[in-house]
């Protein structure tokens, strides 16, 4: 047999054999092992409230409410529901996912450049919204007194990479705590205590940054401040 013909036959067999071994046996075996050993993690750390699926612990969410038009219809732009922040809840970071913020079936970067006017304008818009949310809509009094642009932590106005960041910085949470305490009639120390409870430390003590899990924190608020973790196996 000619060498190239021999190589061709071997190649065809090799591709098929490897496809079965590495493309079916391997990923399905890993999936099977994970399903048995780490069922919560393998299925996305689902969080239930009263038996209803309300999210995944590690996928961020938009804690906004739908904006309604005068006729009562939910307002949409390009198929995405328009929302406004719900002052009762801690707000997640800005998100640039396609089809509306925190679309976890289409993660997307914002791809905004460092020297672009568009980036500056987006930052300014987010800053404005953040400062607006710090004001009592009726009295215009500031919840966190003396909050200025320079005091806003960057994570509060810069979009995350995945658009699905489940966490905010502690500094961001502390600022929002003033609003939460006021609208929920809680003491600031209670809210700060909850923030501390749902803050995850750095990996191995040094890798990455501390962050506050927004979904867990908001669920704890809803349950009243004595509640336990969201029940999906908290991990540090």
């Amino acid at each position, binding site marked *: 047999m000619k060498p*190239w013909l021999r190589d061709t036959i071997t190649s065809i067999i090799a591709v098929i*054999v490897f496809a079965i071994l590495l493309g079916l046996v391997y990923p399905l075996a890993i999936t099977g092992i*994970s399903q048995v050993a780490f069922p919560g*993690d393998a299925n996305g750390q689902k969080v239930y*409230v009263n038996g209803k699926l309300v999210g995944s612990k590690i996928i961020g969410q938009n804690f906004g409410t739908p904006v309604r038009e005068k006729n009562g219809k939910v307002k949409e732009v390009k198929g995405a529901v328009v929302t406004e922040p719900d002052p009762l809840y801690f707000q997640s970071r800005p998100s640039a996912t396609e089809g509306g913020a925190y679309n976890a*079936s*289409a993660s997307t970067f914002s*791809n905004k450049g460092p*020297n672009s006017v568009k980036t500056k304008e987006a930052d300014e818009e987010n800053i404005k919204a953040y400062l607006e949310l710090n004001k009592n809509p009726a009295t215009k009094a500031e919840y966190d007194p003396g909050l200025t642009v320079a005091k806003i932590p960057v994570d509060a106005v810069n*979009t995350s990479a995945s658009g699905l960041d489940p966490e905010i910085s502690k500094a961001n949470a502390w600022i929002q705590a003033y609003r939460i305490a006021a609208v929920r009639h809680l003491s600031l120390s209670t809210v700060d205590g909850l923030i501390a409870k749902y803050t995850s430390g750095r990996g191995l003590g040094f890798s990455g940054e501390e962050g506050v899990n927004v979904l867990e924190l908001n669920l704890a608020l809803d349950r009243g401040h004595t509640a336990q973790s969201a029940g999906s196996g908290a991990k540090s």
Partner: protein
Amino acid sequence: MTFAGWFTIVAFVLVLSALAFPLSAYMARVYTGERVFLSPIFGGPERFLYRILRVDAERQQDWKAYAKSLIIFSLAGWIFLYIVLRTQDAFFVPHSLNPLGYHSAPANVTFNTVSSFLTNTNWQYYSGETTMTYLSQMIGLTVQNWLSAGVGIVVAVALVRGIISRSGKGLGNFWQDMVRTILYVLAPLSILIAIVLASQGVIANISSYLTVHTITGLEQKIAMGPVAGQEAIKMLGTNGGGFFNTNSAHPFENPNGFTNFFEMLVVLLIPAALIFMYGRMTGNRRQGYAIYATVMIMFLGAVVVAYIAEAHGSPAQHAAGLHTGVISGSGGGNLEGKEQRFGIAGSALFDVVTTVTSCGAVNSALESFTGIGGAVPFANLSASEVIFGGVGTGLYSILLYVLLAVFIGGLMVGRTPEWLGKKLEAKEIKLAGLGILITPLAALFCTALAVASKAGRASISEVATSAKLGVHTPQAFSETFYAYLSQANNNGSAFAGYTGLIQPNAGNLGAHGITFADVLGGFDMVFARYAPILFALAVAGALAGKRITPAGLGTMRTDNGTFVVLLIGVIILVGALTFFPALLLGPIVQGLTGHLY
């Protein structure tokens, strides 16, 4: 910048070295045919595979036979993957493996994707969770994650064999090397890594996408999938093609600070081990240490620059009035396109780890990096995959540079250049020179074509344009240049605004490709992968069996500090001379100004 940030960088280098060293001893035994502790387990399957592949694994191949097997095998892999991706909605695909009923991407996008995964590039013009079915991810993309990594490693091994061979023209047997690489090196590590990742929250299921009703009355759809297995080999094989669109920034691919650190180690593990292995196989470990020192110095330089630049923040942030320093409870910095849990150090380090290798995974948006921070991945790619580089690719690429450095050093001292006792002659130098220059040439040629043509400019993202300058912004040039540079270097990371796929809405509806970008990119990747492989194998063939003369007093040593400096000089010289004008037009001009446009 924080203490924890600097500590992460130092800890990373130490842990990596500590892990790569023992692995190199193991791999050296595997590739010299000695028994290893896994032989009792994999010996049987190994012989069984040779039988069904109908190969005589002990038959030595010269460089041409080795290259022929490699090319034909790659071609078969290309055709197979193309068929898988183009038939992902066919009748024989079970519903459970295509729960969302996704159609295939159009032919031009598929051409690009297939070329991309075959060449270990993993450039992605598609978006994983809105294009690929579970079956395509597994039997299509995951398989090439393994095989392309294997092909890279065996070329490096063959080149090392050629360098040390004292007699005969044999470089080993391609099929034996492939099977051993997969069974003894990739499989055990990959399984271990996948299980660690799954234990940390990387998902592994074949469920349909979740629909969630949030506490504020919104609906959220969450993509699922068999991620853990693919994630492991994606990092280990320096592939880098994300299961999801945002790759390792997605919480299901990289859930926390620990996995971020772990994934970075996994990326550099084999490239680092191969360098030590080279030293062992030449019989002088210092040869390996010299190369390790060379690449480590360049690596650390890149990390430091990227970390400082990103911690400083971007002109856009400062213009908006933001304070980007570290404050109590926030790490500050340029957090646009970065995740809170990784922070600046974890993002900058990940960026360097994946752009020095051919990994191309990202955990942050490179396009949103500051000018200087973004110049770092450019510089890493300009060094043509020699700073650690892809699995195998890195070693054979830097060995070509070593050859060039020995030649230049020889000219400087006025002696016939000698390397490990072998005289280097015109033939080897010509082959190595071509092997080095072909990748930059492909990158620059394609970039020029893309920026100069209307069809190419169609891929530039809307956010990179400006009211004043239209598409002629530094950002638009950067993203175009990066696209073809990344594809030529088989890296696959992206300034992701540049696109070849248009998907007006989320979901698999109405997607179509930009033919120019898809096709040019596809050829860019295939050409810049296989041409250097052929040159590397040809060098191996030319060196194999050359007479070895003992080193004399006047022989230039290739295992000391002087040589490290010379080698760094040669790498920077080639990279700078080739790319400096282009780099000036994009990232550097952005880094030098606080001006917005």
